[in-house]
Structure formats: structure tokens, C-alpha cells
């Protein structure tokens, strides 16, 4: 399956899904005009990949400095897809990065980890740039 790379813009994150290396990352800020359209294709590609490859060990890095309400919803859907794969026998390690002073993103990550216990979550505080 072909890797997926989308360059960042001021309001959308860098998407770097290296399917061949089993390493996916999202980095930057996320408030695209139409989050459903932006993430819809990304989630579809991810689901295709997860349907093709089972029993894998996948490493996911999510380092978003800010995401708006509609991006939050789409991130939830993306992580739900990863959780389904984890329940189906793959191992998913999700690294969740947050600004050391940003409790909102940390708390959202913690909530996700409670919702999706099949995923191996770890949170990382990063220093503000």
C-alpha cells in the first residue's frame, strides 16, 4: 500500500503515514475549513490499510498543538479505527504529545485512552517552542 504524505499548512497538520514502516504521524495545527473532508480521505486510507494488514505492530504519533471542535470529532473517529484494529489482534502504540502547559489536550488524550483500552497509550509533555 502506498504511503500517504500531506504537507502541513497553517491550519492543517502534516500527515505522514508510512504504511511500509508501520509508523503513522500527525503533526502541527488542525483547524481546516472542512475537517470532515480533510480527515475523511485520511481515515478511509487508514481503514483500507488496517483491513489489509492484520497482526501488525503499529506505531502512531499524534503531536497536535491545537485542534478545533470538528477536528476533535475526526480524531476520535481515526483513533476508533485504530482501536478496532487493536481489538482484532494488531498491537497499536499511540504516542500522544501535548504542550506541557496544555491540560486540555492532555485530558483529551487521557479520555481517549479510557475509551479505547485496546490501544497502548503513552502521553508525552513537550516544552513550548
Amino acid at each position, binding site marked *: 500500500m502506498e504511503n500517504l504524505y500531506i504537507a502541513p499548512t*497553517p491550519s492543517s497538520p502534516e500527515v505522514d503515514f508510512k504504511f511500509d514502516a508501520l509508523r503513522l504521524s500527525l503533526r502541527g495545527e488542525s*483547524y481546516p475549513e472542512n475537517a470532515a473532508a480533510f480527515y475523511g480521505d485520511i481515515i478511509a486510507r487508514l481503514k483500507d490499510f488496517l483491513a489489509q494488514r492484520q497482526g501488525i505492530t503499529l506505531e502512531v504519533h499524534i503531536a497536535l498543538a491545537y485542534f478545533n*471542535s*470538528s477536528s476533535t470529532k475526526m480524531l476520535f473517529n481515526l483513533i476508533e479505527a485504530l482501536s478496532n484494529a487493536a481489538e482484532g489482534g494488531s498491537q497499536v502504540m499511540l504516542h500522544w504529545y501535548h504542550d506541557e502547559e*496544555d491540560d486540555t489536550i492532555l485530558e483529551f488524550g487521557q479520555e481517549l485512552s479510557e475509551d479505547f483500552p485496546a490501544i497502548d497509550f503513552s502521553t508525552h509533555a513537550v516544552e513550548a517552542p
Partner: protein
Amino acid sequence: MPSPMIADKYGSFFHLAREHQVIFYYVGYFSQHIVAAMADAVKLQLEVAGVATPTRRKLFSSFIEMAQNIIHYSADALTPASQNDGELRHGSVCIRREADGSFLLLCANPIEAVLAEELRVKLEALRKMTMEEIKQAYRQTLREEAPEGSKGAGMGFLTVARDARQPLDFDFDTDDASGDAPVFYLKAAI
């Protein structure tokens, strides 16, 4: 040659902004590019002013939700109603500093009269909710299908309400001179 007439004629407008401690104001058409550029300006301004990080985050988040609401829902659009990307719609946003150092975010845009009533019901219910109920509704909405007709996730107002110090205030001005559509105002204290 300098003309004192300019100060006489237009000074009151700038004076009023100073009086209201306006730190950011934009009126005009909103596009995604404009919102991203404003986001930069607001972020820089709050950093330079030394505003505490949690307050900055709340202001920034609420600002983006308000600005994107204008792109999605203002009744004054330059792009066709069927278009849901690259939209251009009219409204205004304002950030002002309160005497106690806290902030007020205000936005205004014309809205279809039929949607105004729906919005009133929704926001009145939101105003009655406690912070715990707001967080609960947020968690629940996140796990539901996006509501019909919503271009976001139906979570924008909940997101702003979660970060505000007081219940969100809103109003509809049906006598606005700018057109027939009522003007929707929203105010968040951060």
C-alpha cells in the same frame, strides 16, 4: 497637506475602540485564509502581551470556533449555499480587554431568520447548563454521529462554553440596518 478634518470626522471611531480596549477587530468577509492569518495575529499579540498560557489557549480556541462559525453559517455569503469548501461569508469578531484584565470575545453575523429560532433554543439550553453538564454533553456529542446540517461536529458552542468563565451571552438584532436577516451576536467571557 495634513487635514485636521480626518481626526474630526473619523477620530471618534478610533477613540471608541481605545475606550473599549479593543485589542483585535475584524469586519468583512471571512475565508479560511483570513482566519489562519488572523489566528497568527491574535496568537502573536497575546504572546507579546504576556497573557498566561491557559488563557491564551482558551481565547485562541474560542476565537477560531467563532470565526469558523461565520464561514459556515453567516447569511451573507459570496459563495453559493451549496458550496462547503472555500467559502466566503460576512461577519465580525472582536477581542477586548476588561478592566480586571480578563477578556471578552464578541462576534456578529447575519443569520437566516428560520435558523435564528433554532439557535436561540440551543443557546438558551446551553446557558442553563453547569460546567459539569457542559463537559458531559461535550463527551456525548463527540461519540454521536454529527448532526444533520452541521458543517462542523455540533461541538463548537460546547467548546466555547467549556472555556468561558460565565454562561455564553447571545442576542439577535432584527432591526439591523445592514439587511433583512437578523444579526446574531455571541459573547464569551474568557
